[in-house]
Protein backbone atom coordinates (compact mmCIF):
# COMPACT_ATOMS: atom_id res chain seq x y z
CA UNK A 1 0.00 0.00 0.00
CA UNK A 2 2.89 2.35 0.88
CA UNK A 3 4.56 1.57 -2.44
CA UNK A 4 1.36 2.30 -4.38
CA UNK A 5 0.97 5.62 -2.62
CA UNK A 6 4.62 6.44 -3.38
CA UNK A 7 4.17 5.59 -7.07
CA UNK A 8 0.98 7.65 -7.22
CA UNK A 9 2.76 10.51 -5.47
CA UNK A 10 5.67 10.41 -7.91
CA UNK A 11 3.31 10.17 -10.88
CA UNK A 12 1.42 13.14 -9.57
CA UNK A 13 4.67 15.03 -9.17
CA UNK A 14 5.79 14.21 -12.69
CA UNK A 15 2.45 15.30 -14.09
CA UNK A 16 2.51 18.41 -12.03
CA UNK A 17 6.06 19.21 -13.16
CA UNK A 18 5.23 18.53 -16.83
CA UNK A 19 5.06 21.39 -19.38
CA UNK A 20 2.35 23.88 -18.73
CA UNK A 21 0.88 25.23 -22.00
CA UNK A 22 -1.09 27.98 -20.31
CA UNK A 23 1.30 30.89 -20.26
CA UNK A 24 -1.22 33.28 -18.66
CA UNK A 25 -1.30 31.51 -15.33
CA UNK A 26 1.50 32.41 -12.95
CA UNK A 27 4.02 29.63 -12.39
CA UNK A 28 3.65 27.81 -9.07
CA UNK A 29 6.54 27.20 -6.80
CA UNK A 30 7.82 23.65 -6.46
CA UNK A 31 6.43 23.38 -2.93
CA UNK A 32 2.98 24.43 -4.16
CA UNK A 33 3.13 21.93 -6.99
CA UNK A 34 4.11 19.17 -4.54
CA UNK A 35 1.26 20.20 -2.26
CA UNK A 36 -1.24 20.10 -5.15
CA UNK A 37 0.01 16.71 -6.25
CA UNK A 38 -0.21 15.40 -2.69
CA UNK A 39 -3.77 16.74 -2.45
CA UNK A 40 -4.68 15.02 -5.73
CA UNK A 41 -3.23 11.76 -4.50
CA UNK A 42 -5.04 12.07 -1.17
CA UNK A 43 -8.34 12.77 -2.94
CA UNK A 44 -7.82 9.81 -5.25
CA UNK A 45 -6.98 7.56 -2.34
CA UNK A 46 -10.09 8.70 -0.44
CA UNK A 47 -12.32 8.05 -3.45
CA UNK A 48 -10.77 4.63 -3.96
CA UNK A 49 -11.25 3.83 -0.26
CA UNK A 50 -14.89 4.91 -0.47
CA UNK A 51 -15.41 2.75 -3.57
CA UNK A 52 -13.84 -0.25 -1.83
CA UNK A 53 -15.98 0.32 1.30
CA UNK A 54 -19.15 0.53 -0.80
CA UNK A 55 -18.16 -2.62 -2.69
CA UNK A 56 -17.49 -4.50 0.55
CA UNK A 57 -20.81 -3.35 2.02
CA UNK A 58 -22.72 -4.44 -1.11
CA UNK A 59 -20.96 -7.80 -1.13
CA UNK A 60 -21.72 -8.28 2.59
CA UNK A 61 -25.40 -7.46 1.96
CA UNK A 62 -25.49 -9.92 -0.95
CA UNK A 63 -23.94 -12.64 1.22
CA UNK A 64 -26.36 -11.93 4.09
CA UNK A 65 -29.34 -11.99 1.71
CA UNK A 66 -28.13 -15.23 0.12
CA UNK A 67 -27.64 -16.84 3.53
CA UNK A 68 -31.12 -15.76 4.61
CA UNK A 69 -32.69 -17.23 1.46
CA UNK A 70 -30.74 -20.46 1.91
CA UNK A 71 -31.83 -20.66 5.55
CA UNK A 72 -35.48 -20.21 4.52
CA UNK A 73 -35.15 -22.98 1.95
CA UNK A 74 -33.52 -25.32 4.46
CA UNK A 75 -36.25 -24.53 6.99
CA UNK A 76 -38.94 -25.34 4.43
CA UNK A 77 -37.25 -28.63 3.52
CA UNK A 78 -36.37 -29.82 6.96
CA UNK A 79 -39.35 -28.40 8.82
CA UNK A 80 -39.48 -26.64 12.09
CA UNK A 81 -36.30 -27.58 13.88
CA UNK A 82 -37.91 -27.19 17.28
CA UNK A 83 -40.52 -29.90 16.61
CA UNK A 84 -38.73 -32.05 14.06
CA UNK A 85 -41.82 -32.21 11.85
CA UNK A 86 -41.70 -31.75 8.08
CA UNK A 87 -44.75 -30.48 6.18
CA UNK A 88 -46.06 -32.42 3.22
CA UNK A 89 -48.82 -34.39 1.55
CA UNK A 90 -49.02 -38.14 1.01
CA UNK A 91 -51.18 -40.37 -1.15
CA UNK A 92 -51.87 -43.95 -0.21
CA UNK A 93 -54.42 -46.13 1.54
CA UNK A 94 -55.58 -47.07 5.01
CA UNK A 95 -54.17 -50.43 6.12
CA UNK A 96 -53.83 -52.60 9.18
CA UNK A 97 -50.33 -52.47 10.65
CA UNK A 98 -49.92 -56.23 10.56
CA UNK A 99 -50.98 -56.27 6.88
CA UNK A 100 -48.22 -53.78 6.08
CA UNK A 101 -45.84 -56.37 7.55
CA UNK A 102 -47.22 -59.44 5.80
CA UNK A 103 -48.17 -57.74 2.54
CA UNK A 104 -51.63 -59.36 2.57
CA UNK A 105 -54.07 -56.49 2.74
CA UNK A 106 -57.53 -56.99 4.18
CA UNK A 107 -60.29 -54.86 2.64
CA UNK A 108 -61.24 -52.34 5.31
CA UNK A 109 -64.29 -50.21 5.99
CA UNK A 110 -65.26 -47.87 8.81
CA UNK A 111 -66.82 -50.48 11.07
CA UNK A 112 -63.95 -52.92 10.58
CA UNK A 113 -61.43 -50.21 11.48
CA UNK A 114 -63.31 -49.47 14.69
CA UNK A 115 -63.49 -53.17 15.50
CA UNK A 116 -59.73 -53.60 14.97
CA UNK A 117 -58.78 -50.54 17.03
CA UNK A 118 -61.04 -51.54 19.91
CA UNK A 119 -59.39 -54.97 19.85
CA UNK A 120 -55.98 -53.36 20.30
CA UNK A 121 -54.92 -53.65 16.66
CA UNK A 122 -53.45 -50.65 14.87
CA UNK A 123 -54.61 -49.11 11.63
CA UNK A 124 -52.42 -46.65 9.78
CA UNK A 125 -51.54 -45.30 6.38
CA UNK A 126 -49.38 -46.88 3.68
CA UNK A 127 -47.81 -44.53 1.14
CA UNK A 128 -44.98 -45.45 -1.25
CA UNK A 129 -44.11 -48.54 0.75
CA UNK A 130 -43.88 -46.65 4.05
CA UNK A 131 -46.29 -47.29 6.92
CA UNK A 132 -47.34 -44.29 9.02
CA UNK A 133 -49.32 -44.04 12.23
CA UNK A 134 -51.64 -41.05 11.89
CA UNK A 135 -52.32 -38.53 14.64
CA UNK A 136 -54.39 -35.36 14.67
CA UNK A 137 -53.02 -31.91 15.43
CA UNK A 138 -53.79 -32.37 19.14
CA UNK A 139 -51.54 -35.46 19.21
CA UNK A 140 -54.31 -38.08 19.47
CA UNK A 141 -54.39 -41.25 17.42
CA UNK A 142 -56.65 -40.28 14.49
CA UNK A 143 -58.16 -43.67 13.73
CA UNK A 144 -61.66 -42.13 13.40
CA UNK A 145 -60.65 -40.06 10.37
CA UNK A 146 -58.81 -43.06 8.93
CA UNK A 147 -62.00 -45.11 9.37
CA UNK A 148 -63.91 -42.47 7.39
CA UNK A 149 -61.76 -43.06 4.29
CA UNK A 150 -60.98 -46.76 4.85
CA UNK A 151 -61.50 -48.86 1.73
CA UNK A 152 -60.67 -45.99 -0.63
CA UNK A 153 -57.84 -46.85 -3.00
CA UNK A 154 -56.45 -43.33 -3.05
CA UNK A 155 -56.41 -41.32 0.14
CA UNK A 156 -54.62 -37.99 0.46
CA UNK A 157 -53.27 -36.81 3.79
CA UNK A 158 -51.92 -33.33 4.38
CA UNK A 159 -49.93 -32.53 7.47
CA UNK A 160 -46.54 -33.00 8.99
CA UNK A 161 -44.39 -36.08 9.31
CA UNK A 162 -41.92 -36.95 12.02
CA UNK A 163 -39.81 -39.93 13.04
CA UNK A 164 -40.47 -40.85 16.66
CA UNK A 165 -38.15 -43.51 18.01
CA UNK A 166 -37.75 -44.78 14.45
CA UNK A 167 -41.50 -44.87 13.79
CA UNK A 168 -42.99 -42.70 11.06
CA UNK A 169 -45.80 -40.51 12.36
CA UNK A 170 -48.05 -38.13 10.42
CA UNK A 171 -49.75 -35.28 12.28
CA UNK A 172 -52.66 -34.87 9.87
CA UNK A 173 -54.37 -31.57 9.17
CA UNK A 174 -56.58 -32.99 6.40
CA UNK A 175 -57.54 -36.52 5.37
CA UNK A 176 -59.51 -36.87 2.14
CA UNK A 177 -60.22 -39.46 -0.54
Amino acid at each position, binding site marked *: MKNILLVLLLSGLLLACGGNEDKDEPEKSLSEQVEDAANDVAEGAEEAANDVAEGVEEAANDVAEGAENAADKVKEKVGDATTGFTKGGWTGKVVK*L*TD*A*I*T*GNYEALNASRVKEL*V*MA*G*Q*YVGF*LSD*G*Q*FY*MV*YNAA*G*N*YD*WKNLARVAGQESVNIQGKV*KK*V*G*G*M*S*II*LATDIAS
Partner: protein
Amino acid sequence: MKKLFVAMLISVSLVGLALTQVDINAQSGITGKTVSLSSEVISTNENVDAKRAKELYSAGQPLVFNSNGKLYYVLNAAGNIDAKNLVRNAGKQVTIEGNVKTSNGVSYIIATSYK
Protein backbone atom coordinates in the same frame (compact mmCIF):
# COMPACT_ATOMS: atom_id res chain seq x y z
CA MET B 1 -8.44 -60.22 -13.17
CA LYS B 2 -7.14 -62.36 -10.32
CA LYS B 3 -7.10 -59.34 -8.00
CA LEU B 4 -10.66 -58.43 -8.97
CA PHE B 5 -11.79 -61.96 -8.23
CA VAL B 6 -10.08 -61.92 -4.81
CA ALA B 7 -11.62 -58.53 -4.01
CA MET B 8 -15.08 -59.80 -4.94
CA LEU B 9 -14.55 -62.93 -2.84
CA ILE B 10 -13.56 -60.83 0.19
CA SER B 11 -16.56 -58.51 -0.31
CA VAL B 12 -18.98 -61.43 -0.51
CA SER B 13 -17.46 -62.95 2.63
CA LEU B 14 -17.78 -59.67 4.54
CA VAL B 15 -21.41 -59.22 3.48
CA GLY B 16 -22.18 -62.79 4.55
CA LEU B 17 -20.53 -62.21 7.91
CA ALA B 18 -22.51 -58.98 8.41
CA LEU B 19 -25.79 -60.71 7.59
CA THR B 20 -24.99 -63.48 10.06
CA GLN B 21 -24.34 -60.81 12.71
CA VAL B 22 -27.69 -59.10 11.97
CA ASP B 23 -29.47 -62.41 12.31
CA ILE B 24 -27.81 -63.09 15.69
CA ASN B 25 -28.81 -59.62 16.94
CA ALA B 26 -32.35 -60.05 15.66
CA GLN B 27 -32.82 -63.15 17.77
CA SER B 28 -31.56 -61.72 21.05
CA GLY B 29 -33.85 -60.16 23.65
CA ILE B 30 -34.39 -56.44 24.02
CA THR B 31 -34.99 -54.68 27.29
CA GLY B 32 -37.28 -51.72 27.78
CA LYS B 33 -40.78 -50.75 28.84
CA THR B 34 -44.32 -50.27 27.58
CA VAL B 35 -45.06 -46.70 26.51
CA SER B 36 -47.94 -44.79 24.98
CA LEU B 37 -47.19 -43.92 21.36
CA SER B 38 -49.28 -40.74 21.72
CA SER B 39 -47.13 -39.67 24.65
CA GLU B 40 -43.99 -40.30 22.62
CA VAL B 41 -45.38 -38.29 19.69
CA ILE B 42 -46.06 -35.22 21.80
CA SER B 43 -42.89 -35.82 23.87
CA THR B 44 -44.61 -35.91 27.27
CA ASN B 45 -42.89 -39.20 28.14
CA GLU B 46 -45.78 -40.29 30.34
CA ASN B 47 -45.00 -43.06 32.81
CA VAL B 48 -47.37 -45.88 31.88
CA ASP B 49 -48.19 -48.40 34.62
CA ALA B 50 -50.45 -51.41 34.18
CA LYS B 51 -53.60 -49.47 35.12
CA ARG B 52 -52.85 -46.63 32.69
CA ALA B 53 -51.86 -49.11 29.98
CA LYS B 54 -55.24 -50.81 30.37
CA GLU B 55 -57.01 -47.46 30.05
CA LEU B 56 -55.10 -46.63 26.89
CA TYR B 57 -55.72 -50.08 25.46
CA SER B 58 -59.47 -49.78 26.16
CA ALA B 59 -59.53 -46.38 24.47
CA GLY B 60 -57.83 -47.79 21.37
CA GLN B 61 -54.64 -45.79 21.98
CA PRO B 62 -51.52 -47.56 20.69
CA LEU B 63 -49.02 -49.07 23.10
CA VAL B 64 -45.48 -49.76 21.92
CA PHE B 65 -42.21 -50.94 23.42
CA ASN B 66 -39.41 -48.47 24.07
CA SER B 67 -35.91 -49.88 24.21
CA ASN B 68 -33.18 -47.26 24.62
CA GLY B 69 -35.26 -44.65 22.79
CA LYS B 70 -36.13 -46.89 19.86
CA LEU B 71 -39.79 -47.83 19.54
CA TYR B 72 -41.06 -51.23 18.45
CA TYR B 73 -44.50 -52.63 17.72
CA VAL B 74 -44.84 -55.94 19.53
CA LEU B 75 -46.58 -58.85 17.84
CA ASN B 76 -47.47 -62.26 19.21
CA ALA B 77 -46.74 -65.55 17.48
CA ALA B 78 -50.10 -65.35 15.67
CA GLY B 79 -49.01 -62.07 14.06
CA ASN B 80 -51.34 -59.76 15.99
CA ILE B 81 -50.38 -56.75 18.12
CA ASP B 82 -49.59 -58.21 21.55
CA ALA B 83 -51.41 -55.46 23.43
CA LYS B 84 -52.46 -57.73 26.30
CA ASN B 85 -48.88 -58.61 27.22
CA LEU B 86 -47.79 -54.99 26.82
CA VAL B 87 -50.52 -54.04 29.32
CA ARG B 88 -49.64 -56.90 31.69
CA ASN B 89 -45.95 -55.93 31.75
CA ALA B 90 -46.42 -52.15 31.80
CA GLY B 91 -44.71 -50.11 34.52
CA LYS B 92 -41.59 -52.26 34.74
CA GLN B 93 -38.46 -52.99 32.79
CA VAL B 94 -38.89 -56.21 30.85
CA THR B 95 -36.86 -58.17 28.36
CA ILE B 96 -38.77 -59.40 25.36
CA GLU B 97 -37.30 -62.44 23.70
CA GLY B 98 -38.10 -62.95 20.07
CA ASN B 99 -37.30 -61.86 16.56
CA VAL B 100 -36.78 -58.21 15.68
CA LYS B 101 -37.67 -57.42 12.09
CA THR B 102 -38.34 -54.47 9.80
CA SER B 103 -40.87 -54.31 6.98
CA ASN B 104 -42.30 -51.30 5.08
CA GLY B 105 -40.48 -49.04 7.51
CA VAL B 106 -42.05 -50.81 10.51
CA SER B 107 -39.73 -52.14 13.22
CA TYR B 108 -41.41 -54.87 15.22
CA ILE B 109 -40.72 -57.76 17.57
CA ILE B 110 -42.41 -61.10 17.29
CA ALA B 111 -42.38 -61.86 21.00
CA THR B 112 -41.83 -65.37 22.29
CA SER B 113 -41.48 -64.46 25.98
CA TYR B 114 -41.44 -61.58 28.48
CA LYS B 115 -38.97 -61.63 31.41
